[in-house]
C-alpha cells in the first residue's frame, strides 16, 4: 500500500469526488440562477438579452421591499429570542447541572426532537396552535380565556413560536461546545480574585463563549432567512417571507423573478455571514 503525502500532487485527487459534487449540485445551479435572473425580453430562452429589468421591477415594488424588511425583522427577532434562550439553556446544561447523568438525559431530551425533519416539526405545531388546539384548550381549562384565541395559528406570533422551537438548538449547540472548553478553574480563579458571579460571566465566560454565540446567530439567521416551510404551514396563506416569495414565483412559472429573489436572498445571507466573520474569526475556534 502506498502512502499519499499531504501536499503531494496525488493528494489533490482525493478532493475530486467532493469537488465534482459541489460543482454539479451547488456551483453550477447557483451560476444558472444568477444568469437567469438577468434574462430580459419577453421570451424565456437562453437567447434572452442580459438586463437589470427584473431587479429594477423588484425594487420598484413597495410590497416586495416590505417583504425584505419583514424577513430581516423576523430573522433579528428570532436571533434575539433564540440567542437568549439558547445561551440560558447551554449555561444551565454545562455550568449549573452538577450531575453528569442529568446533563446527558436533559441534553438528549433537548436534541432528540431535532432528529425529525424541520417540516414535520413545523406541521406538528398546527394542532398546538389551532383554535381547538392544545394551547387554547389549556387556556380555557385554566380559565385564562373564555373564547379560543385565533391569533396563534395563521399569525406571525404562531410562526415565531414554532421557529423559536425549531432553531433554539442551533443557537444553544455552539455555546454548549464553547462552554465545555472552559476549565472550571477559570471561573474559580476569577472568584478568588474578587469577581462576583455576574462579573465572572461578563468578563471571563461570555468573551470566551462569544464565538459560539456568533456561530449560533449565523445559523439561526441563515435558517430563518431561508425558512418557507414553517411560514407556509403555520402562516397559512396569510403570511409570507422572502423564501415564500421564491416559491410563489416558481409555482407561477415566473422563473426569472424566482431567480431574482433567490439571488437577493443569497446576497443577504452572504452579507450576514461576512458581518459575523468580522466579529469573530470562526477559523480560530477551538484553538
Amino acid at each position, binding site marked *: 500500500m502506498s502512502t499519499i503525502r499531504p501536499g503531494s500532487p496525488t493528494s489533490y485527487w482525493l478532493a475530486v469526488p467532493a469537488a465534482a459534487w459541489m460543482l454539479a449540485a451547488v456551483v453550477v445551479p447557483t451560476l444558472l440562477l444568477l444568469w437567469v435572473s438577468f434574462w430580459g425580453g419577453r421570451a424565456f430562452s437562453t437567447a434572452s438579452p442580459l438586463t437589470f429589468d427584473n431587479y429594477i421591477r423588484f425594487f420598484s415594488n413597495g410590497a416586495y421591499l416590505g417583504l425584505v424588511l419583514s424577513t430581516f425583522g423576523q430573522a433579528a427577532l428570532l436571533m434575539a429570542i433564540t440567542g437568549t434562550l439558547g445561551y440560558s439553556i447551554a449555561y444551565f446544561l454545562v455550568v449549573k447541572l452538577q450531575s453528569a447523568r442529568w446533563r446527558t438525559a436533559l441534553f438528549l431530551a433537548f436534541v432528540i426532537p431535532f432528529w425529525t425533519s424541520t417540516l414535520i416539526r413545523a406541521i406538528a405545531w398546527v394542532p398546538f396552535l389551532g383554535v381547538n388546539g392544545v394551547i387554547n384548550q389549556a387556556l380555557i381549562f385554566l380559565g385564562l380565556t373564555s373564547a379560543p384565541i385565533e391569533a396563534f395559528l395563521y399569525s406571525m406570533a404562531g410562526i415565531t413560536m414554532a421557529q423559536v422551537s425549531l432553531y433554539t438548538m442551533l443557537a444553544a449547540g455552539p455555546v454548549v461546545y464553547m462552554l465545555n472548553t472552559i476549565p472550571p478553574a477559570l471561573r474559580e480563579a476569577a472568584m*478568588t*480574585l474578587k469577581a462576583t458571579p455576574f462579573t465572572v460571566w461578563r468578563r471571563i465566560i461570555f468573551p*470566551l463563549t462569544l464565538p459560539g454565540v456568533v456561530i449560533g446567530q449565523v445559523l439561526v439567521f441563515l435558517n430563518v432567512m431561508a425558512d418557507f416551510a414553517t411560514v407556509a404551514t403555520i402562516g397559512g396563506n396569510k403570511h409570507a417571507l422572502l423564501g415564500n416569495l421564491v416559491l410563489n414565483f416558481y409555482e407561477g412559472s415566473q422563473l426569472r423573478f424566482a431567480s431574482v429573489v433567490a439571488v437577493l436572498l443569497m446576497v443577504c445571507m452572504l452579507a450576514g455571514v461576512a458581518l459575523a466573520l468580522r466579529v469573530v474569526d470562526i477559523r480560530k475556534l477551538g484553538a
Partner: protein
Amino acid sequence: MPEGPLLTQLDLELRGIRKRYGSFTAVDGVSLEVGKGQFVCLLGPSGCGKTTTLRCIAGLEEPDDGDILIGGREVTGDPPWKRDIAMMFQDFALFPHMSVAKQIGFGLEMQGRPRAEIEARVREVLASFEILPLADRRPASLSGGQKQRVALARAMVTEPRILLLDEPIGALDYSLRETVMLELKLLQQRSGISFIWVTHDQNEAFSLGDLVVVMNHARIEQQGPPEEILARPRTPFVAGFVQGNNVFRGKAGAIEAGLLRIVTEVGEFLVPAGAHTAAPGALVSFSVRAERIIDQPDAAVRNRVTGRCTAVEFFGAVRRHVLELADGSLLKYDQFGALAPRFVTGQVVDLGWRAEDAVLHAP
C-alpha cells in the same frame, strides 16, 4: 519573621472542618492554626483531602461542618470574593483571552482601584517578577515557567492575607523547580503573606514549610515543623510516607529503664517508651531513620538485625543500601558522602541502631 505579640492574631484558623461527597468523606475534622506570615505545607498522597481543605479555605467548597476564620474573622459561609485570600491553581488557570498585563490587573480592577493606579502597580509587579517583556502576550504563547510567574503575580498583586497554592510547581520541569522554590520562599518571607501550599512532594514540603501538615484519609496525621516530622513521626503512616524511615511492627513487652521491649518477626528491640501506656501484648510500631543505622555495630548497640544486601541506590549526597531481613521485609541504610558502596549486592551483613534513635508511634 514576625515573632511574639504579632503571632497572637492568627491568619487562619480551621476548627473541625468536615466535607462529605455522598458517602465519601473528603475532609474529616481538620483543625489548623496558621500564625501571621507562616509558610504552611499540606502534604499527603492524592485523595487525602489536602486540596479539598484548601478549597474550603478559598470558599470554593462549603464544609458540612466546622468553622473557618481568616484574620480572626468568621468566613465559613462567605463566597470566595468576600475572603481575604488569593489562590494559585495547579494548571495556573490563566484567562486565555486576556494579555498578561490585563490578567495581573484583573484583581485590582475587581477591588475598584483607579485605572492609573492599576497600570502603575501592574508595571511594578511585572518588573519585580521579571516578566515586563511579556506584558502584551496572551497565555497561549507563554512557556510553563512564564505561566507560573504570571499566575503568581496575578494572585500576589492583590496583597491578600493568605495565598493558597494548589501544587503550584507540579506542572513545571523538574530542573526549574529548585530555583522556583527558592524564589517563592524568599518572596513569601519578604511579603509577609501566609502561604498555604498543597503538595504531594515531601521535598517541597520539608524545604519550604515553617509548618508541615501531613494528611491521610481525610485527617491530619501530624503537624509540626519539618525537623520534628522527620525526626519524630507520630504515626506509622507518617513514618512510612516520609522517605528514609524504616518501620517495624510488633508486640509490646515490658518497660525496663524507660525502654519498651518490642517483639517483631525479625527480633526483639528496645525503643524509648515515652508516655507509652499500652498493655503488654498490644500491637505497636516504631521507626528508625535510614541514616541512623550502624554498620558492624559494637556490643553496646543492643538493637541488631542481619540482612542481605539486595540493592544499592545512589542519590547524589546519599548512597542508600537496601537489605532484606529474615522475614522478607526491607531495611534502608543510608550512607552520606559520595563514597564507594559499603556492601555489594548479595552480601550478608550485621546492622544495628542505638535504642534512643528509634521512635515509638502513637497507637
